């Protein structure tokens, strides 16, 4: 059976669809997170070298990985919006950016809190850390550009262009930062790749899945808000039950 994808790429239908989908992502996210935490804290054994501090890994690694993937997804949506002029893609890009920035922040934060006990410093200028920081800057640039343009059409296009240029640059940045750090023999500590206990792997995967589901749910919820804002003057929005309902509250 052929699915009419265009039907779902219109904000009109997507608004309702997203509303229905959110619980299917949000609840599993919460449950998987709880499971991951349980395994991570109660099943997984204490690490020999890092003692209990290593348990940050179950949060840190998923956050780091998501922050990177979300940027690519965001740039992809932005490019779709720019090329095919589909409003929904632009809105999705706009909705993903804050979540991506947030994961980047969580990665930095948990990394810093991990670094202090392990390396004795909150921060070292290691390649991975530095490129994560730059990634956060890229997100902030995208958000700032979008926010400072009043006209949404222009804002979408301008920030899409930025995201695309950024995504071309991300690999270049990543490799140059890596190269930069290995030239100097400064940082003596490397992240130790301890071979992982099976429970650790399970915990990490559970939290990772939870983060993915959470990101999707949050992006969908945010895109619903954006649709409401942008389509405020259309009839279908004014016909929505949640808009009509508010009569009572008013009188």
């Amino acid at each position, binding site marked *: 059976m052929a699915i009419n994808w265009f039907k779902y790429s219109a904000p009109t239908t997507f608004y309702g669809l997203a509303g229905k989908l959110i619980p299917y992502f949000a609840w599993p996210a919460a449950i998987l997170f709880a499971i991951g935490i349980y395994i991570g804290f109660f099943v997984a054994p204490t690490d020999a070298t890092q*003692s209990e501090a290593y*348990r940050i890994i179950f949060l840190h690694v998923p956050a780091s990985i998501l922050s990177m993937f979300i940027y690519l997804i965001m740039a992809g949506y932005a490019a779709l919006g720019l090329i095919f002029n589909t409003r929904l893609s632009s809105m999705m890009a706009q909705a993903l950016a804050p979540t991506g920035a*947030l994961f980047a922040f969580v990665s930095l934060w948990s990394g810093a*809190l991990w670094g202090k006990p392990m390396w004795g410093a909150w921060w070292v200028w290691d390649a991975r850390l530095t490129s994560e920081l730059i990634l956060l800057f890229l997100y902030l640039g995208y958000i700032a550009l979008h926010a400072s343009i009043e006209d949404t059409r222009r804002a979408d296009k301008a920030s899409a262009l930025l995201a695309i240029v950024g995504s071309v640059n991300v690999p270049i940045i990543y490799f140059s930062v890596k190269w930069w750090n290995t030239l100097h023999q400064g940082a003596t500590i490397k992240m130790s790749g301890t071979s992982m206990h099976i429970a650790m792997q399970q915990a990490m995967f559970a939290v990772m899945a939870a983060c993915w589901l*959470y990101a999707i749910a949050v992006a969908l919820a*945010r895109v619903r808000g954006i649709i409401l804002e942008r389509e405020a003057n259309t009839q279908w*929005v*004014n016909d929505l039950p*949640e*808009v009509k309902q508010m009569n009572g509250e008013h009188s």
Partner: protein
Amino acid sequence: MNWAEFFAMKGYAFYVWGSYGVALLVFAIEIMLIRNRRKQALRNLRLMRDEMGESV
């Protein structure tokens, strides 16, 4: 293992709970902001519609 020992995390409590705590806090804030944004949008919609109603 008792709970106090568990929460102490062998002296790493601040770091471990600090990172998980802030992460959860940040997620909660994000969810709250999205809720607010939606509420604000709905409120604006209502205001606009009522204004239209008056002017007609």
